[in-house]
């Protein structure tokens, strides 16, 4: 053997040993705890192991509306704090969905010019005055705030979803943004899909609003009958709860006092287990405090009634605001609203310092309430979604479908490979054995590479592997047919092998480079499944060229050199 052969052989040996060491965690399905120096292994994609895949869309019009409403409330506080001016909140004008505007009404006889000046000085370029009529000022968001909202929303949403999922405990979740208005969430291997979906979809918008009790209950009841007569009834199977609430408020828009809206206490019937619409409340449209003011949320148990509740702790700024609000609204009720649903609306007995509040959930089976309390505390702790998310696309793969298909596919591959191997030996005799060896090595190296990169294997990925193996078989056949051509010309066997390999070199290289060019384009321009295919194909191409050409040649050189005047079995 020549010295260069030995160098190549040592390289090959190292590659093989490293590959075997690398695929051990994948083959024996090691867990995190298994004591083994290498942790990385091939992860199965959602389509193979089951799990949840979703694309969530961000509802920007709603985000703009919430943002300008929040600014209106800030203007109110600002004018009161600095100039002692009394203002009330006017109505929201959502006609332009990308640029909603909100009115602020100054008390009669106020110095409008001074108020405008003060607002401009304090808020700068964040908001802009869109129109004014006497003591009514209308503001809209500045373009800068809107772009900022667009840019930050998906990033913030991803962060919040990640926090929630981490608390939920899913291994290897994948959460990424697509464009500026989409978020992709992939949770492989999730068992409790319903709960996962609920946790992710929950906006967790916590709001504290003062209830308007000056309007008699009879009037509210009358409004409710009117809504019902207009055919607006809640049906769980047809629409979401928040959509229903939105429709009710749209229908009553002309009659409700300005800057107020209807909210309901949602109840779940113990008998039918269906969501029912409970008592209506007339509450302010703009919240006094929100989830942003929150420091912490935990589940506690009321010892006397044996009922779980969620206790809230405000940040220092929020605590100060809470104290002010409770102080100036003694005797009124304050509604605690989570995702548009009134959880509780206790009467404010006295000014509350210390920044603590609680959400009581009522009774209804200890375990059920406990689970709900835990979920609420969890989403509040993990943060509210900055925007409403709609489910645009969701795929759930049951775990059994995944394992069934993998099992069947593996059995089929083994049978197909066996047939292929028998064919190789039948057609090419001993050279066929070498071909089989290179094919097996090819698959070994490929899996090792995927494990090393911690790649996720999906069905399109398997398609890539299938094509790679097909091409590897082809490389062997190209070379062997070349060798046969040479043998027919009657040259000496060693020369035949050499000429066979030399003659097929550029054929193999050109075919694989062309393939790789296509693969790079698919990787760069494709999405999801196409990329999965491209990744395995590209890795496969590099490995096939090495294994099926160079390792093959190495084996043949050894085979021909073993005995002087070796016969060639091909």
């Amino acid at each position: 053997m020549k010295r260069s052969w030995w160098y190549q052989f040592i390289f090959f040996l190292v590659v093989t040993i490293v590959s075997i060491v690398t695929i051990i965690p994948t083959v024996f399905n090691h867990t995190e705890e298994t004591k083994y120096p290498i942790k990385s292994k091939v992860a199965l994609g959602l389509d193979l192991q089951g799990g949840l895949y979703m694309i969530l869309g961000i509802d920007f019009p709603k985000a703009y509306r919430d943002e300008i409403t929040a600014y209106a409330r800030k203007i109110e506080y600002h004018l009161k704090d600095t100039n002692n001016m009394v203002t009330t909140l006017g109505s929201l004008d959502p006609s332009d969905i990308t640029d909603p505007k909100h009115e602020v009404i100054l008390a009669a006889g106020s110095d409008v010019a001074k108020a405008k000046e003060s607002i401009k000085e304090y808020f700068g370029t964040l908001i802009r005055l869109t129109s004014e009529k006497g003591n009514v000022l209308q503001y809209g968001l500045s373009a800068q705030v809107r772009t900022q909202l667009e840019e930050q929303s998906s990033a913030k949403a991803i962060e919040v979803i990640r926090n929630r999922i981490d608390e939920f405990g899913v291994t290897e979740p994948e959460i990424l943004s697509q464009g500026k208005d989409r978020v992709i969430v992939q949770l492989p291997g999730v068992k409790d899909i319903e709960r996962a979906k609920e946790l992710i979809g929950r906006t967790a918008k916590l709001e504290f609003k003062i209830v308007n009790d000056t309007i008699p209950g009879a009037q509210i009841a009358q409004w409710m009958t009117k809504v019902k007569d207009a055919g607006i009834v809640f049906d769980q199977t047809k629409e979401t709860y928040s959509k229903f609430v939105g429709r009710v408020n749209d229908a009553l828009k002309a009659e409700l006092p300005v800057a107020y809206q209807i909210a309901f206490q949602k109840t779940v019937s113990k008998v039918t287990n269906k969501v029912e619409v409970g008592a209506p409340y007339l509450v302010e449209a703009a919240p006094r405090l929100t989830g942003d003011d929150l420091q912490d949320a935990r589940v506690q148990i009321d010892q006397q009634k044996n009922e779980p509740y969620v206790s809230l702790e405000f940040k220092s700024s929020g605590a100060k605001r809470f104290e002010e609000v409770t102080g100036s609204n003694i005797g009124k009720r304050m509604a605690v609203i989570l995702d548009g649903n009134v959880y509780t609306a206790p009467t404010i007995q006295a000014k509350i310092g210390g920044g603590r509040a609680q959400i009581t959930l009522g009774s209804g089976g200890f375990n059920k309430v406990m689970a709900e309390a835990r979920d609420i505390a969890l989403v509040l702790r993990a943060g509210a979604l900055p925007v409403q998310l709609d489910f645009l696309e969701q795929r759930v793969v049951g775990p059994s479908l995944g394992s069934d298909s993998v099992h069947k596919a593996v059995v089929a591959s083994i049978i197909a490979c066996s047939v292929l191997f028998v064919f190789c030996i039948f057609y090419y005799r001993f050279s066929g054995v070498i071909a089989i060896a290179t094919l097996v090595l090819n698959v070994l190296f490929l899996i090792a590479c995927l494990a090393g990169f911690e790649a996720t294997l999906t069905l399109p990925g398997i398609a890539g592997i299938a094509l790679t193996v097909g091409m590897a078989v082809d490389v062997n056949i190209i070379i062997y047919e070349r060798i046969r051509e040479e043998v027919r010309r009657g040259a000496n066997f060693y020369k035949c092998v050499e000429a066979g390999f030399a003659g097929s070199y550029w054929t193999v290289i050109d075919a694989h480079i062309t393939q790789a060019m296509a693969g790079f384009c698919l990787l760069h321009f494709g999405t999801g499944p196409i990329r999965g295919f491209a990744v395995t194909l590209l890795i496969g191409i590099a490995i096939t060229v090495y294994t099926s050409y160079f390792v093959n040649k190495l084996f043949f050189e050894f085979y021909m050199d073993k005995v002087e005047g070796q016969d060639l079995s091909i």
Partner: protein
Amino acid sequence: MFTIIKPGTKIDFVGKMRMAAIASVITVIICAILVVTKMNYGVDFRGGAEIEVKTKQRLSLDEIRQSLEKSGLKGVTLQTIGDEAENEVLLKVQADPHELNVVAAGVEKTMRTDFANAGVEIRKVDVVGAKAGKQLRVSAFLAMCWAFISVMIYLGLRFDFRYAPGVVVSLVHDTAIVLGIYALFGFEFSLQTVAAILAVIGYSLNDTVIVYDRVREHEHKYPGVDLLTLINNATNETLSRTIVTSGATLMVTVLMYLLGGGAIKDFFFAFSVGIVFGTYSSIYVASAFTYELDVFQKWRKARAKQTA
């Protein structure tokens, strides 16, 4: 030495080229019409929802239909899938985009509650907005276009620019035929189909490059021989390799199609069809196109000389 194709075989491929070209053009046109009119787009591309349910006890489709109607859920079509014994039903939901989620959830819930006794297992739920489906189609198409362009440039540089368009024509030919057969049999065009088409293109590309490679080799070895003879000799010389490779891979893909189970069945069906037509197209479409292009170029040169 065991051989399928005897060495020294001389089949006149080129002589039948015109016939083959006509047959190919007609087939591709028929396939294109089938694709446009009859293609059954899956939920991934059309938007909508699909729920796959497996039950322990056998349920009749009527039973399910009635129960769904009772819950006020409309626009659901039912279909049994997989083996008889598996008791698997596919529920396809069509609804307004904004209601899709709610209706799909309703169907899922109804199945769970109404047939709890039958041991219902929800195996798969796919809900795809129409917008997402369109995006996927566009991105898949663009990726393929770029792949074609880059392949053409590489072949143009490495071989000759006469060869480059032939490859793309043959790839379009193969894609059209595989899709046409899909449409003809009413198979659903899904993400798996995209993966299969990609594999078919890859396979056909490989095949074509290998025939070209031999033509190029002969061009250098026997200068002065006309292209028609070169193509014929090259095709005959690589015929053994072509048949053995195609036979071996076809054997594997057919086995995988028969034994691999539902999840990969469609993929290997398309791949098998693709292998047959990919092999044919590298001889009759790619080489034929290259030859015609050569003839056209010579004719143009001759005319240019005449006018000058």
